[in-house]
């Protein structure tokens, strides 16, 4: 821990393999990494952020060994640029929720009827989503709002989170009247207890096919973790956090 | 070891100066502010670059613009004392001096130098714990620590009060008895120069106007400008007439042919008959009498005004035969009281023929660098 970071570079195995993970995996992945450490003694270093940001950083040679994106398009872009070992594996499919903090006058429902009314009568001044430009959950939120025909009305009130975690932050904080963010985050007790939410129908947005891939910098430890993520123990945790699981992937 | 310096440049500070100072001699550079005297000193010290010229001390060439020689200040064996002491504030008096002592000198050299200035008891004090006079003595000790071959004083006595100044003068005089260094001192105070210097050099606008022993320069200025700079208040007009026969005195017509006073003076053979001249006379060559007398050059004058400044009274006299002329004279208050001088009375000024110093009206300035 008190290692000197000089010169050896971040890709050294000290501290464990370096993972870039989409923010919606915040709680799920922390749980999986803890279990992994318990089982193998190997710690894992995780950085959370928006998938688009990580893709850009990896293109600039950032030292990440494993990239867990919330949108497979980013993984494919990297693979096309020959930055990855292969085209990766699907590990989960995500869902979004409409959330209102306790203090809010908004009542969340699956058809967003109260949201529509609230936008009309001025109850909504600020509404949080992740930045659609580089966060998959932001893109999904926009698509959902567009399907409901609410995008024009909500746009002037939007507060954009740099990643879906920050969007959840804003939604929970009480300084907004609500927001749309990841289901996996809403299931965490700290957030669930802060308000009420409802799952939004899958047909309102493009599926959030979450794909992960090893980069060329991946060491043995990273590969080991990559396999672990596709095994039952890890998959159970994903399920616990509301992700839909792909069919058993082909063995690598 | 004689110091010789010839300096010339047109800018940024114009200079056209010449310095000669022999070992054991004290030369004062005198002039008004902006006259370039400090620049000349700094150039000699090596602290300022000059366009053209040559500076030598004995055989050593410190600066020669033709040969591209410029010895940096730290390598010239000079000691310098500054107007505001320039002592290193974070060091004690002893350490200030010790810093300048060269390697290989005895261990107590610094303390000894301070002892020479009666400062050994104060050696551990910092400059801010010393009085102005004490600081300047430390500065002097420090300047001597390098065993310099030349001592430079830049308005070294201006920042202290009168009594302290007096004791510093004494210190300097004692020093000159101990060491035979050439010393160049910059001052704007003529009295100080007169008191301490063997020779003075008058500078104006960066140009050396005249140099020589103080009494000579101050009573025989080369021209009107020098006369003004050495404090001669009255510059009179006149016409010079050569002696009519050998051994006879020359005649100076104070004023002009129409109205004036005839004075006798000596003929030095330098002036043509009938030449228009300016002339000056310093106060020591004018004697004031209450009654007329038989001595030559007696000029009855109206005592127009008297201004008293402590022990001295400045009189403004106007000759009766030439009322537009002015002659100022300083006398002691005691003398004035003795003669019962009052404004409006008539006094008789006896002008010493030998004291009259005549300057031709048009005279090309002698190039000091020629």
């Amino acid at each position, binding site marked *: *821990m*008190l*290692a*000197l*970071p*000089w*010169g050896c*570079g*971040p*890709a050294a195995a*000290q*501290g464990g393999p*370096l993972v870039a993970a989409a*923010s919606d995996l*915040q709680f799920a992945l*922390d749980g999986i990494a803890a279990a992994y450490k318990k089982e193998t003694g190997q710690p894992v*270093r*995780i*950085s*959370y*952020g928006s998938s688009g940001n990580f893709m850009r*950083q990896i*293109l*600039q*040679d*950032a*030292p990440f060994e494993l990239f867990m994106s919330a949108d497979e398009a980013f993984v494919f872009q990297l693979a096309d640029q020959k930055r990855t070992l292969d085209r990766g594996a699907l590990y989960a499919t995500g869902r979004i929720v409409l959330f209102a903090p306790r203090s809010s006058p908004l009542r969340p429902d699956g058809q967003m009827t109260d949201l529509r009314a609230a936008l009309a009568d001025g109850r909504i001044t600020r509404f949080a989503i992740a930045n659609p430009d580089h966060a998959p959950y932001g893109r999904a939120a926009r698509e959902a709002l567009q399907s409901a025909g609410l995008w024009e009305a909500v746009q002037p009130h939007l507060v954009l989170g740099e990643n879906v*975690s*920050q969007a959840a*932050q804003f939604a*929970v904080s009480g300084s907004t009247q609500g927001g749309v963010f990841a289901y996996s985050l809403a299931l*965490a007790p*700290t*957030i669930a207890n802060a308000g009420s939410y409802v799952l939004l129908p899958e047909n309102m947005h493009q599926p959030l096919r979450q794909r992960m891939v090893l980069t060329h910098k991946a060491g043995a430890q990273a590969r080991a973790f990559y396999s672990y993520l596709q095994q039952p123990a890890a998959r159970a945790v994903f399920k616990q956090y509301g992700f839909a699981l792909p069919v058993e992937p082909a063995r690598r | 070891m004689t110091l010789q310096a010839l300096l010339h440049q047109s800018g940024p500070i114009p200079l056209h100066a010449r310095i000669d100072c022999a070992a054991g001699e004290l030369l004062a550079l005198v002039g008004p502010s902006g006259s370039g005297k400090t620049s000349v000193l*700094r150039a000699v*010290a*090596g*602290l300022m670059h000059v366009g053209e010229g040559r500076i030598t001390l004995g055989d050593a060439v410190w600066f020669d613009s033709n040969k591209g020689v410029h010895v*940096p*200040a*730290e*390598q010239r064996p000079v*000691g*310098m004392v*500054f107007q*505001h002491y*320039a*002592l*290193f*504030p*974070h060091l004690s008096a002893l350490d200030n001096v010790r*810093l*300048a002592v*060269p390697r290989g000198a005895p261990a107590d050299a610094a303390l000894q130098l301070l002892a020479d200035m009666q400062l050994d008891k104060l050696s551990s004090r910092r400059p*801010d714990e010393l009085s102005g006079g004490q600081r300047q003595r430390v500065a002097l000790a*420090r*300047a001597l*620590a*390098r065993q310099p071959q030349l001592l*430079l004083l830049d308005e070294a006595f201006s920042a202290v009060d009168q009594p302290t100044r007096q004791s510093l003068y004494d210190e300097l005089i004692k020093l000159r008895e101990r060491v035979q260094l050439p010393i160049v001192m910059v001052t704007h105070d003529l009295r100080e120069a007169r008191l301490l210097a063997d020779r003075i050099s008058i500078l104006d606008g960066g140009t050396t106007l005249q140099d020589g022993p103080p009494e000579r320069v101050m009573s025989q200025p080369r021209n009107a400008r020098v006369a003004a700079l050495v404090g001669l208040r009255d510059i009179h007009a006149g016409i010079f007439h050569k002696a009519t026969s050998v051994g006879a005195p020359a005649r100076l017509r104070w004023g002009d042919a129409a109205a004036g006073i005839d004075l006798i003076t000596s003929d030095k053979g330098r002036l043509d008959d009938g030449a228009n001249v300016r002339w000056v006379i310093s106060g020591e060559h004018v004697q004031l009498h209450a009654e007329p007398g038989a001595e030559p050059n007696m000029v009855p004058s109206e005592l127009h005004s008297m201004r008293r400044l402590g022990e001295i009274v400045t009189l403004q006299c106007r000759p009766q035969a030439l009322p537009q002329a002015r002659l100022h004279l300083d006398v002691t208050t005691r003398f004035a009281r003795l003669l019962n001088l009052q404004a409006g009375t008539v006094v008789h000024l006896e002008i010493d023929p030998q004291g009259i110093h005549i300057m031709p009206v048009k005279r090309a300035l002698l190039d000091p660098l020629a």
Partner: protein
Amino acid sequence: MDWPALWLSLQLSLATALILLPLGVFAARWLANSRHPLKPVFEALLALPLVLPPTVLGFYLLVAMGGESTLGIVFQRVFGHTLAFSFTGLLVASVIFNIPFALIPMQRAFETIPTDLHDAARTCGLSRWRTLWRIELPLARRGIASGMIMTAAHTMGEFGVVLMVGGSIPGETRTIAISIYDKVQSFDMQAAGTMSAVLLVLSMTTLLVSAWLLRTPAAARHHG
């Protein structure tokens, strides 16, 4: 409490201050004594990081050091890893954006040394080096110390540039300021609170030490 992040921040601050010490001293001394016609231009350039938004600085640094840049590529070849996203890259960025914090107090300190002291030193036979060592540095030491402290304090808190150039790589570029940001994002408010309090105490201590160092002795102010 993210100890590795705190340790990283401390190392970054210390390293930056140590690098800027000799660089700052020589640059400050030159600037204080120089009458070069272009001096105002240099001063403005060196003060730029004070006013430039950190993201602008971060952007230009990324362009200069990132994987696509000449510097980045050469570095990668020599050391086997990227300049950006590494501690070394962070150190380079940190040195650059701290220049005015180190330089300005030092320059002021050198400027207050009266010019006749320089002249006196020379006429005492002191070489330029000895003058620096025995006269200028002791007289300027408060300003130098102040510059170092400002640099260290500023580095501890720097966020925008670090994030852009370093990312948030645990153990490598995740400084304490970044870690606080991450903790808030992952809803770990307690950790964020603890670390913020630590930084607050550190900053206050720095300011107090700095003020103490720069105090003017009462005697000097009233000296006639």
